[in-house]
């Protein structure tokens, strides 16, 4: 029995197998956000329709849910009514939608079809999205009353997930 071969071999096998087993079950597409637990990057963007400028800092004092979406995104289309319904039911939570790389026409068309209960803001060249570390759409950030991001969710929203993450913001 060649001890050297055995030991080196077992070590290599153990490392490889351990790593691969650990990798199973994880979603390689999911990215952890480093902003969770940090202050939300401030922004002030123009809302479609009303034309008023909404400043994030002015919303401090109540929890804020920022939802990044786009008109060409199918899961956004599906989640929108859920967001609208929840927004209507919870007037003490400020919902905000942010759209980048889209035209006002398409956005208005979308909102007319899917409903609107909160301001939708235009992020001209996606800079706000970049600052927030947005990878794809839809992505939703939960900010507490003190202005700290407490959670980020990637993917289409459901009422359950929304309530779950909102609970973190309300603590």
């Amino acid at each position, binding site marked *: 029995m060649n001890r050297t071969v055995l030991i080196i071999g077992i070590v290599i096998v153990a490392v490889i197998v351990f790593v691969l087993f650990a990798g199973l079950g994880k979603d390689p597409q999911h*990215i*952890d*956000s*480093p*902003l969770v637990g940090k202050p939300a*990057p*401030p*922004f*002030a*963007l*123009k809302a479609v329709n009303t034309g008023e*400028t909404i*400043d994030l800092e002015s919303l401090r004092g109540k929890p804020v849910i920022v939802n990044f979406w786009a008109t060409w995104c199918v899961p956004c289309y599906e989640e929108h009514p859920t967001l609208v319904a929840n927004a209507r039911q919870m007037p003490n939570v400020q919902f905000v939608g942010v759209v*980048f*790389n889209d035209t006002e026409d398409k956005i208005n068309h979308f909102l007319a079809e899917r409903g609107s209960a909160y301001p939708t803001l235009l*992020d*001209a*060249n*996606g*800079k*706000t*999205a*970049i*600052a*927030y*570390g*947005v*990878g*794809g759409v839809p992505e939703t950030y939960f900010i507490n009353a003190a202005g700290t991001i407490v959670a980020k969710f990637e993917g289409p929203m459901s009422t359950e997930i929304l309530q779950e993450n909102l609970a973190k913001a309300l603590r």
Partner: protein
Amino acid sequence: MIATFFLLALLQVKVPDAAQFVGQPQGTPLTGQQLEQQTMAISHELRCPVCQGLAIGDSPSIMASNMKAQVRELLERGYTEEQILSYFEKSYGQFVLLKPKFQGVNALVWILPIAVLAIGFVLVVSKAKKLEVAPVHAAVEEEPTDDPYLARVREMVEKS
């Protein structure tokens, strides 16, 4: 470019700025050919968050184009490569850096191959020396008894 700024300023729109993440620019603003080249270079160091492993310099997706535009703008304002990479790292995490940072556990990915080369070199030299003085055996051939057909032939030959 300037018109957009003017318009945005008029509307009191403000977007999160790199300054909040990495402070004031510490390099000189770039223009022209140098600007394009540096934009390309840095774009190849940042990972597109929606694509599978591509750099933002290689991806046609919207997010990647926005990020590239942001890189170009920051270079125009005089941010250094380090600051720009740090800015993206603060928003997206280390995931977005295609070149692993040489710190902490990540340093291992740089050190291990070099270590293997060094150890391997020592092993090769010692093996070569060992082989130089190895005793020479006769060529290992198949034992006749192993091959049943040959064994039978031999039998028949011996019988006759």
